[in-house]
Structures are given as structure tokens and as C-alpha cells.
């Protein structure tokens, strides 16, 4: 009754340049933790093996440290790991894999599927049919040889591939590294473990994408899972369960503000988010000075709470109300300037006008505070 863990697309060595250095480092760290969590999950679930369906590494020339850390992170699960080279870490003549071997960083229980063919895990009752990428891009279906690849009797036929299942994924037309959607049938596979699609996705009852165990982008596609596959006997329908492995949730919001209650709603949603969140907000519409201040405060609090929060207010116009202006004590020509900037926000490049208005408002506010003191 073999049971194994299906994961993929670890993309180790990826850096998160859009974030602040500190946040980026945390996000990188989370990916190593994800491997450790996978190992623990495999132990907890009493899995016989862990199959990694490609893109373990984000690039060929990652640092030696990265290579060593990846393999170190697997140590909690001492059963066999099968790692398949994907498009990011293809098994080229010289690759991250050959470097790993030179570094002697690969533990004995980690099998590298650097050549197409079989890896028999007889003790575990699994025959792994591997279709590694040996070039950066291929336009032929590398899993096709599975059809004619014979496996020892009694072992489950488990396909391990990396690429786009044709006709089922968005943007998969003319995609490189194509995979036939009925490969499990033509190759008589008990299960086909796939990587490349970063969300967990079922193609058919025997074919799955596990997705990446730790999300690394905002695109909302069910990332952050590992699959535990349980197959009672050769030919039996696999029993697949999703296990959350993500540390951080990534959210990207596009909101339009027009009245104060819109902001209330936004702030409420922000408050409700868990702390392990990566949040990207882009706002448009208009906001008055008071609400702008409220938003600033809320974002300041959120910055401290969340892993990362970014808010793009370029398209959000500042619309000071009469009360705002009165409160600012903007008499004389300052009033004229404020009016002018308000009007200029409607122009072709409203950004500068908006920023200028914000600066002026803050200066006047500070002054008011000074006077009040």
C-alpha cells in the first residue's frame, strides 16, 4: 500500500527583489522552511517516498550555500527522495545537479533523475518513470517514452514530469515542454506527478500538479500545498489529499476609493488579514485629506504587522474638502495653490500635483501643530 508525497517547483535560490531587503530575506528563508515542513509532513504522513516534479532550483548558477542548504533541509525524511530536473534546473552537460554532486552535497537517499528512464524503488513498491528536462526548452513531449517503458511487475507505475499539459492550462497553446493530457492512460500510469504549474491542480484522477509548497507570487492560483498520494494497489484509483505547507499568504488587491466608507471597508479587510501575509494594494479613485491621514496611519500599523505591505497610491487623487482647507489655515495665495493643485490632478500627469498637494498639506498641518503648541 504505497503512499508518497508529491511536490514541485521549489524554485530555490530565487530572490524577492521587489521587497525590502529584510522582507525578501524572510521570504527566502520561508522556502527552506517549506522543504523542512515537507520532510516533516512526509514523516507524519508515513510516506514511502517524496517525489519532486522539477524546478527544485530557480537557476543553474545558484551559490554553493544554497545547494547545500536545500539538501540539508531534506534530512528529516530519511526515505527516498526523487528529484527531477525542470526547465529552471535542466540536466545540462554542466548543471546545478552536477555541481551538487561535485560538492558531495547530495545525500544517499536523494535520487537525482538526471537521465530519462526508470528509478525503481522496489522496497517502496514504486517504479518511477522519469522525464527530466535535459535542455532548457523542448517542444516535444518528454513523457512519450513512458508509453513503451516497461517496469518490473508488482511495482506501481508512477510518472514524474515537468511541463504544460496541453489544452488544459491557461496560455498553454504552443507552450514549451508540452505533456499529453492522456499520458496516464497511454503509458498505463498509476499516477502522473507533474510540476511547472505553481498551483495545486488536478488534471484527471491520475494526473496532478502539486504546485509550489510556498507561494512566491501574487497570482492567486492555489499555491502553497503538497499532495499526499495513496495508491492501494497497481491500477487502483489514487487517493490524493492536499496539505497546506505555506507560511505566507500573498494578496494583491485593486481597490477604488470614492467615499469614506470605502476606506473603512479596506482598513477592515487589512485588519482581518493574518500576520503572515504579503500584501500589495493598488488604489485609485479619490480621497480627502483626513482619510488620507487615516490611510497613512493604518498602513503604518500594517507595515509593522505584516511580512510586507505595499500600497500604490499613484492613481489615487487627493481631494481636500472645505473643512480640510479650513483646518489647514491656508489663507491668501496658499489657498490658490491648493486649488490649482486640485485642478492639476485632473491633468495628464496628475502624480506630481497629487504629491505636491500632499506635501503642502503636511507642511501646513505641521505648522498648525506648531502654532497650536
Amino acid at each position, binding site marked *: 500500500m504505497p503512499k508518497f508525497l508529491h511536490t514541485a517547483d521549489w524554485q530555490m535560490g530565487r530572490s524577492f527583489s521587489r521587497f525590502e531587503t529584510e522582507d525578501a530575506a524572510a521570504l527566502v528563508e520561508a522556502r527552506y522552511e517549506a522543504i523542512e515542513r515537507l520532510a516533516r509532513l512526509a514523516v507524519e504522513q508515513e510516506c514511502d517516498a517524496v517525489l519532486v516534479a522539477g524546478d527544485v532550483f530557480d537557476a543553474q548558477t545558484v551559490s554553493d550555500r*544554497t545547494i547545500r542548504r536545500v539538501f540539508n533541509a531534506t534530512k528529516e525524511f530519511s526515505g527516498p527522495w526523487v528529484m527531477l530536473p525542470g526547465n529552471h534546473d535542466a540536466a545540462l552537460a554542466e548543471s*546545478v545537479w552536477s555541481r551538487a554532486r561535485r560538492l558531495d552535497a547530495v545525500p544517499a537517499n536523494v535520487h537525482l533523475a538526471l537521465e530519462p528512464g526508470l528509478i525503481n524503488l522496489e522496497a517502496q513498491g514504486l517504479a518511477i518513470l522519469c522525464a527530466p528536462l535535459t535542455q532548457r526548452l523542448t517542444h516535444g513531449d518528454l513523457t512519450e517514452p513512458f508509453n513503451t517503458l516497461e517496469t518490473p511487475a508488482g511495482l506501481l507505475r508512477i510518472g514524474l514530469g515537468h511541463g504544460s499539459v496541453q489544452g488544459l492550462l491557461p496560455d498553454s497553446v504552443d507552450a514549451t515542454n508540452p505533456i499529453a493530457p492522456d499520458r496516464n492512460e497511454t503509458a498505463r500510469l498509476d499516477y502522473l506527478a507533474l510540476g511547472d504549474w505553481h498551483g495545486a491542480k488536478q488534471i484527471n484522477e491520475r494526473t496532478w500538479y502539486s504546485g509550489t509548497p510556498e507561494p512566491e507570487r501574487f497570482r492567486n492560483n492555489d499555491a502553497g500545498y503538497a499532495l499526499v498520494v495513496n495508491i492501494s494497489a497497481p491500477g487502483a484509483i489514487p487517493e490524493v489529499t492536499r496539505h497546506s505547507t505555506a507560511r505566507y499568504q500573498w494578496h494583491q488587491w485593486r481597490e477604488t476609493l470614492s467615499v469614506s466608507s470605502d476606506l473603512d471597508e479596506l482598513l477592515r479587510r487589512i485588519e482581518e488579514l493574518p500576520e503572515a501575509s504579503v500584501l500589495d494594494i493598488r488604489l485609485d479613485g479619490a480621497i480627502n485629506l483626513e482619510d488620507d491621514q487615516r490611510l497613512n496611519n493604518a498602513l503604518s500599523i500594517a507595515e509593522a504587522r505584516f511580512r510586507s505591505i505595499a500600497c500604490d497610491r499613484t492613481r489615487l487623487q487627493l481631494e481636500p474638502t472645505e473643512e480640510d482647507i479650513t483646518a489647514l489655515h491656508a489663507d*491668501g495665495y496658499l489657498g490658490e495653490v491648493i486649488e490649482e493643485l486640485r485642478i492639476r490632478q485632473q491633468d495628464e500627469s496628475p502624480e506630481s*500635483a497629487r*504629491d505636491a498637494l500632499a506635501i503642502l498639506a503636511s507642511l501646513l498641518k505641521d505648522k498648525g501643530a506648531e502654532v497650536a503648541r
Partner: protein
Amino acid sequence: MKLQRLQVEQLRQFRKPLVLDDLQPGINLIHGPNESGKSTLVRAIRAAFFERHRSKSVEDLRPWSDSAAAPTIDLSFEHNQQQWQLTKSFLQRKRCDLVVDRHAFSGEDAEEKLAELLGYQFPKKGASKEEHWGIPGLLWIEQGTGQDIEKAVEYAGNHLKSALNGLVGEVASTAGDDVIQTVQTQRAALLTATGKPREEYAQLEKDRDLLQSDIAELEERIEQYQTQVDRLGALNEAYNRAEQERPWEEARRNLEHARAQYQQVETLQQQQTQDQATHHHLQQNLGLLQESQGQLQSQRQKLEQRQKELEKAQQTLEQEMLRAPAFDKAVEQARSDYETAVKAVELARLAERRGHLQQEITRLENQQKSLQQNLTKASEFGVQIDDARTQKQKSLIDATAVQKATSTQRQLAEENIRSQAIATRLTWQLEPGHRLKLNDSEIQGAGEQRLLTDSTLEIPGIGTLGVTPGGEDLASARRTLAHLEQSLGEQLRALGVANTEEAEARLARYQEAESRLRHLDDLIRSVAPNGVERLTAEHQDSGAQLEQKKTELDALPKSEQAAQETALSLTSAESNRSTAESRLSEAETAKRKHEADALSASHSRDNAQREWQQLKDELDTEKRQQQLDKLTSDIAGAEQKKADLEKTLQQRDSNIQQARPDLLKQDIDRYQRAAETLQNAQEGRDRELRDIRVRLEAWGAEGLEEQCSEKKGELEHVNRRYAELHRRAQALDLLLNLLTEKRQALTRRLQAPLQKHLDHYLSVLFPQATLEVDEHLVPGKFSRGNELGQMAELSFGAREQMGLISRLAYADLLQDAGRPTLIILDDTLVHSDAERLDGMKRILFDAAHRHQILLFTCHPEKWRDLGVEPRDLESLKAKV
């Protein structure tokens, strides 16, 4: 504000009180020599307002070495219909009392009230300085500072502006200038004055460029790395394939094979060379044999030739013999023809002779007849000639004499006519029946008569009338006539005729006979040219001839009629004969020639026969035959051998050609090179593989892509920071521009009233000049005619004048805004010439209508024409 009274005591030189009262609303001219205390008075006024009564910085007010002094200033003035009374004491007795319309203030309250009224500040500590003086600083001009106006305006700025705000109803922003300054500061942190990025903003640009170049370098290295990896993959594959296939070994095998093949070909070529030598030898031998055989064969051929020649000669002979009868026959025929032709010629001759004779006879007969006729005619003509001769004899006359007589006759006639013309003409017309007798001739009826000689006219019954014609000529004529008549008569007589007519008739008959005679002579000569006798002889001769011919004809043999008819003409017959003769001759020649030919042929045949026989006898020997047979068999043997050899040679040559030794040689070369190249290539691959592996290991350890990714992260941060600063810089720039712009617009509105006052004064001094006020309300740009420049660039005197004008304009402005305006001038305009000073006096006088002016001077004479009473400080002091 009108200062009414000023009193100072215990202040510098004024130890005793000095009172300056009765001050006028307009100009007050206060004069005194140097050191008389003018400046002390001014200082006193300033101290009263500007210095805190508690100030410790007013030691200069203390009279010299008077430690107990309490310098005191008493001021009375009116403003806004309120009476202000200020008493201020310093040092020993620090006090300040102000009474405004019975409201009393004291101490600092009083001081603040004054400051508010006049528009100035107190220093936080220490002595009051320029920057505190505000409006009074502008309007109270100390000695020698009239030209410096900028600072004063700046210090008075806020007071001026607030006055202006009230005036033009604009609200200047209370916080505006501070905001502008803050924005300027913040902008300056990012941008230089000219808008170039600075400090962090500029540094970010540099960092960005640096990072970009780093990234580009890393990316290039990554690309190199990937290229190398690809190369490694391809090379590895090629190496392994080559190791498996070992193509150089195959090339070696091919090389060996080609070499073996080439050796075989070389052996063949050697054999070929040997056989070719044999072939050459054989060919030579065969040549000799064939030559011998040829010689023998040529004699046989000669015999055959002779045989043929013999046959030919025999044939020719026979032919000649066959042709002989034909020639004989031809001669026979020709001869017969010839004889016939000769006979024909004879016949023709005979016929011709007969023809001739007959013709002669006919001719002679005709001749006979003609001669007979001529004889007859000749006798006739002879008779006629005799007749004519008789006639001629009868009518014989001299033709010349006849002619002469005729001529004379004619002369006579002419003379007669002439005499008639000159003769006297007598005409008459008589009655019928009446007759007259003229010279004995009766006349009747009408008529006329010419009279040459004396004439008588006898009238019957009457008498006679004599008429004598006049003139010599008439006489001459009468003589000539007579002469001529005589001559004529003689001639006629000689001729034997009665008159000329008869003479002429006789002459005609003579001439006619003569002519007939000549004609007949011609006729007779025509029939008998040689005379009649001869003619007769001829007639007889011809008769004799005729007889002879006839006899001859008769003598000719008479041929048959037919023969005569067919007989050809002689020429034709002659021609036929000649033809026949030539034919005969030809035939005979031909026959002779034939005979010669036949003979020759016979000789030829005999020769040929002999030669043939000779050679035949010679050839028909046994030895000869044997020789020939051997030769023939030898040749056949040699040819067979040669043919066999040639076949072998050809076969072998074709074998050699098929083997293509040239290509084999090239193949050997090629395979050799290929083997070397292939092996070298493999070694090269091995080397390159090792190189690339080493290189990739080194590069891989650097973690290029991770580095690059980190750099990109840094770049992104820099870019983000840069974009933020850029946005902020742009926003600040925009904000500053807008603020400045709005502020300037406001200032321009504020400037207008000041400018108006300024123009008012300036036009007095320089009618065409302008002086513009800048945004800080400071007079700046000055223009006069073509002159254009800043006020600061003018001469000291002019600057002083402009300064004063400007201050007066400010005063007007302040007054418009309801502010107090007291103007104090301490020995001002000392640098002005008389003319300008005049202008300035007009200006001051004009200003004095609106403002109170205290004018202190040590040159009272210069201000005499101001129209005010000067007050002598010395006398004021004396008064005390």
C-alpha cells in the same frame, strides 16, 4: 502723525533741557553748524522709540562723565486725532510713560504700543539695530545712508506688506513665505538651484548606472556560462559518439585498403611496360617481314601490270585494225564527190561564157541602133546651122554703135525736156474760129508752147508779135540740142538706119541668130561629140564587132537544156569543188594518220608482249615461290602474336584505368589525413572538454545567477528609491513653482500703488525716466532714455536722490493705509548739484503737504528757498 514738541535733557551735550516746539505739519528746517547737536536730536528721537527704557546699551546717551544723568526725552505728537504724550528716561531713571488721549500706559506696555503704531520691533536684548527699526528705519534717514534702501525696505518688509494688504484688500498668506522657504529647503535637499539632482538623489542615479552595468556584466557572464554549458553538452555528445564510432580507425582501414589496391595497380603497370616493349619489338620484326613481302609482291604486281598493258596494247591494235575500212571508204567517197564537183565547174563555165556573149551582142546591137539615130540627127542639125548662119549674115550690125546711138537719142530727149523747162511758156485760149500764127504755125483753141528761140506771133488782122526768150542757158541749151541732133543723125547714117528703133530691131535679129547657132552647135555636139565623121566610123566599128560576136556564140557547143537549167553558178560550183577538195584532203590525211596509229599500236603490242614474257619467265621460278610462301606464313604468325599481345595490353590498360590510380593515390592521401584529422579532433575535444569543465566549475561556484538576482534586487530598490525621490523632487518643484508664481502675482498687485507714488516723484526729477519696483518692493530697474540699469549702478548722488524719492513713495503708501508717517532727514542730499537739489526741493515741498518732515542741516543757505522758517539750533540752545 504730527510731532508737535520735542524736549531733551541730560542727554549727551544737552545737559540742560532743550525744547524744540511749535513744530509745523510740513517741513521743519533745523540747522546748526557741525557739533551743534543735530545728530544728538535725531538720536534722541530714535532712542525714545527704539530703545527699551531698561536697556543697558544706551550708554552713548549719557552726557560726558555724568554718572548720575538720566537722559530724558519728552515727545508730543498727534495721530488719528489723538494726542500722544511720551516721556522716556534711561540709565539712572529708567522710565517710560505714554498718555494717549488721557489713557496712560507705562513701561513695556507703552513701548509695545508705540512699536505697533509706528511699525518696528524691539531687540530681544541689547541695543536696537537696523533690523529692528521697521518702518521708521525706512523713513528716518541717518546722515550718509540715504542711498542704501534695500536693507531698510527688507526690515520694513512685513510692516509694509501688512500696510499694503490693508490697502489693496488682498490677504497675503500668513504662512506663505515660511512654506515657500520650507519647500525651498526640501527641494534643495534633492535638487540644485538649476534643477539637477544632488546628494542622495544624484547618488542613486550613479548607483543605478553602476548596478546596471554590474548586471549587464553578470548577464553577459551568465550567457557565456550557458553558452559554455551548451558547448559542453554538444562536445560531450560528439566526443562520446566519436569514441564509440572511432571513425579514424575506419579511415585507417580504408587507407590500408587503398594502399593495397594501389600496389596491385603498380604491378599491373610494370607488366604493362614490359609487354609494351615486347609489342614494340614484334612490331619492328613484322615491319621487316612485311617489307620483304612487299618487295616480292611488287614484282608480281609488275607482271600483272605488264599483262594488263599487253592486253591493252592488243586491244588498241585490234581497234585500229577495225577502223581501217571506214577510212578507205571515206577517201573513196571524198574522191567521187570531188570529181563530180569538177565536172560541175566546167559546165558552169560554159554557161557563163554563153551568157556573156549574148549580153555583148545585145549591147552591140543597141549601140548600133543609137549610133544610127545620132547620125540622122546630126545631118538634120547641119541643115539648121546653115540656115542660122545665113540669118546671122543678113542682120549683121555693130551692137556698140547701136548702143551709142540709143544713148545719144536719150541725151537729146533729156536736153529737150530741160530746154522746155527753161523756155518761155506761151499759153493761149482763143475764141473759137480765131486763129493765130505762131512762128508760122497756126494755133487755135486753147494750148501752150514753150519758146526757146525768138518767135513771132502773128495775129491775123492785127499784126505780128515778136517773142524773145531771155537768158544764157537757153542759148546753151539750143546749142547742145543742135549738136546732139547732128551727132544722132551721123550715127544713124553710119548704121544705115533711119532711126534708133530700126537699129535696135536689126540688132535683135542678129543676136537671135547667133544664139540659135550656138544652140545647134551644142545639139550636134551631143549626138556627135567627136564630129560626124567619127560618129560614122564608130557606127561602122560597132557593126563589125557585132558580127564577130555572133559568130563566136554560134561556135559554142550547145548543152542540153536540163543540164543548163541545173547548172550552178560558177562561184557556187567553185565553192563546192573547193569543199570537196578539202574533204578529200581531210579524208586522205585521216587515213594516213590511222595507218600510222595502227602501226604504232602494232609496235606497242609487240613491246608489251616482249616485256610481259620476259618478266613472266623470270617470276615463274620455284625458288621465288618458296620465298614468298615462307614470308607469308612468318607474317601471319607475327601478326597473330601481336594481336594477342595487344589484346592483353588493352585489357590490362583498361584494368589499370578502372582502378583509377590517380584517385587511389588521392584516396591514400585523403584517408591518411582523415585519420589524422579525426584523431586530432577527438583529442581536441578531449582537451576542450577538460578546459570547459574546469572553467564551468569555477564559474558555477560563483553563483552567478543568484548574484545577478541579488543585484537586480538592489537595482530595483535603487530604482524604487530613485522613483520616489524623483516624484518628490518633481512634486516639490511643482509646488515651489506654483507658490512662487502665486506669490509673485500677489506682489505684482501690491506693487501697483507703490509704483504710482514712485512715478509721481520721479517725473519731477526726470520727466522721461522710470524706476521699477521688484517683487520685494525694492526699487530696482532704472531707465532714462536709452539708459537702462539697476538703481545700484547709478552715481552716489543719483542713488541718494532715488533713495529719498522711494522713501517718500513708501510714506505715501503708508499714509494711504492710515499709518503714521514722520520723515526725518539728517543732512541729506549733500551730494546733489544745484539743479537736482532744486528738483528735490520741489519734491520735498510736495511731500510736505502730506507728511511732516524734519530736515536737519548744516547748510541752511542751500534750503533758503524752501519757503519755511529755518530754526537755528544754536539760538534754541541759547534760549534755554
